[in-house]
């Protein structure tokens, strides 16, 4: 059985008018069933308001399902006795780095999670060191988070989660507020965790180029999973992606146009380098 499993999960927000009287409900999640195996790298795509964040918050027991069930490592997240285990097993990284760094110094922030879990002092220091090293931020351990770049802050947030020794990390648009350099740093760190430490990753993002390394891509729309498969499978369905209001990666659009012009190129190539190689091969033999 998977590390994260949901069964017909549904969640409804109650919309309220200015006086606070309920005036309607938004079904933000509508019957989502997924099963993520340990060590998998899963990416979730979807346009604004498709329910990605709402879904992610269920895994960490921050929101509680209106219908259906979520299990993390076999534990039902709705059971109050499991809350702390679940939060430790599935760590969460949010979008805005400034709103999730609690400590005034990098190392103090990374130690926050283990402190809450009651880890002995000596072990906290070991965990802080190894987590900061894993995201290549050890040399900044004495710095104030306010003095770091966005990408560095986000890597500190990831270290903060790592120090809790989770089996799985959920990242909700961790790169949305970063510049391209910062985005690369963060994605590289996330991939390393997945490949080296074998931590299950659930990456929510708007950027297509971040999902090419995923084992599986889920596309959400109106609270449902509209499309899923490997990145190549998903990106080859250009029309469907446009329907779901997602940008199709340039490589795929290029392959399409080339095909129309009579140059045969597979329509599921991702990455600029791969693309260039393929064109070169086709053209120059």
């Amino acid at each position, binding site marked *: 059985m998977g590390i994260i499993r949901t069964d017909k999960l549904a969640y409804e927000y109650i919309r309220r008018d200015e006086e606070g009287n309920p005036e309607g409900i938004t079904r933000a999640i509508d019957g989502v069933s997924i099963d993520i195996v340990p060590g998998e790298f899963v990416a979730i795509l979807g346009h604004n308001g498709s329910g990605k964040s709402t879904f992610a918050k269920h895994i960490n027991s921050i929101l509680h399902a209106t219908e259906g069930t979520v299990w993390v490592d076999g534990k039902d997240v709705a059971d109050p006795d499991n809350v*702390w285990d679940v939060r430790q097993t599935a760590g969460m990284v*949010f979008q805005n780095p*400034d709103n999730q760094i609690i400590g*005034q110094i990098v190392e103090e922030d990374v130690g926050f999670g*283990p*402190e809450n879990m009651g880890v002995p*002092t000596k072990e*906290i*220091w070991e965990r802080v060191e190894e987590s900061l090293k894993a995201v290549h931020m050890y040399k900044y351990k004495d710095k104030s988070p306010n003095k770091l770049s966005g990408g560095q802050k986000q890597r500190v947030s990831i270290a*903060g989660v790592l120090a809790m020794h989770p089996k799985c990390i959920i990242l909700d648009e961790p790169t949305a507020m970063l510049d391209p350099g910062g985005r690369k740093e963060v994605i590289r760190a996330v991939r390393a965790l997945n490949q080296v430490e074998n931590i299950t990753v659930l990456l929510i993002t708007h950027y297509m180029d971040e999902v090419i390394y995923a084992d599986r891509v889920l596309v959400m729309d109106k609270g449902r999973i509209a499309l899923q498969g490997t990145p190549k499978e998903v990106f080859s369905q250009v029309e469907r992606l446009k329907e779901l209001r997602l940008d199709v990666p340039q490589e795929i659009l290029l392959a399409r146009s080339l095909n129309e012009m009579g140059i045969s190129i597979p329509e599921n190539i991702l990455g600029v380098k791969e693309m260039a190689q393929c064109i070169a091969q086709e053209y120059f033999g």
Partner: protein
Amino acid sequence: MLRDITIGQYYQEDSVIHRLDPRVKLAGTVLYIVLLFAFEGIFGYIMAALALFIVVKLTRIPFKYMIRGLKPVVMILMITVFFNLFLTPGQVLVVLWKLTITKEGIIIAGKMAIRLCLLIISASVMTLTTTPNQLTDGLEKSMGFLNKAKVPVHEISMMMSIALRFIPILLEETDKIMKAQIARGADFETGGLIKRAKALVPLLVPLFIAAFRRANDLAMAMEARCYRGGDGRTKMKPLIYKKEDRIAYAIMMGYILILLIARVVCGLR
């Protein structure tokens, strides 16, 4: 402009004072302020200034930086001096229209100014050399006995530490909103008090909304990292007295003794 406020901010440096246990620094600051009010003669002030000067030197923080922190309180200082200068009865020296300056007034105003400056610098020495986490840890531990009286000591100190962490972020945000409003023609600089106060409303509303949103996000992030209050929590940096801390306490005792002996034996205050 707003970033000049240095009160409550940590200044990273590797100095003896930085390494002291926060409880020592807390006790030292409280003691210093009490003594400042108990010994208000020339001798007391000279000793206080000297002690503060030595401590400031030991922190290795540039004195200029520390003085910058005084800027926002200059207004309070001026008001205090003003009232003391003009409203103290006694031997009249100068008469300006309806206001009179007395000899006693000058003395009291001068003392007040010196005392406030020393007080603020001493308090900022503590916050500049102690991370908010250490500071609140120190408070939490020294106030631990209040727990029995059902005072939520841990929660209060956590609140303080988060407030301190967010001061620079909120100031930056205020700056940003101000610039955005100025770009749209808002005017914070001219006009009377009421006009200026009114100009602040469009600044405060977005600031408050942003602060609430931040608070919400932060609470969620803390919960996601298993925060559940002070029970069962361990410390990454537990407070343990070292040799330096004992020496610091001894020096404080020595300082009190000198002041007391000078008062009792030589009549100096």
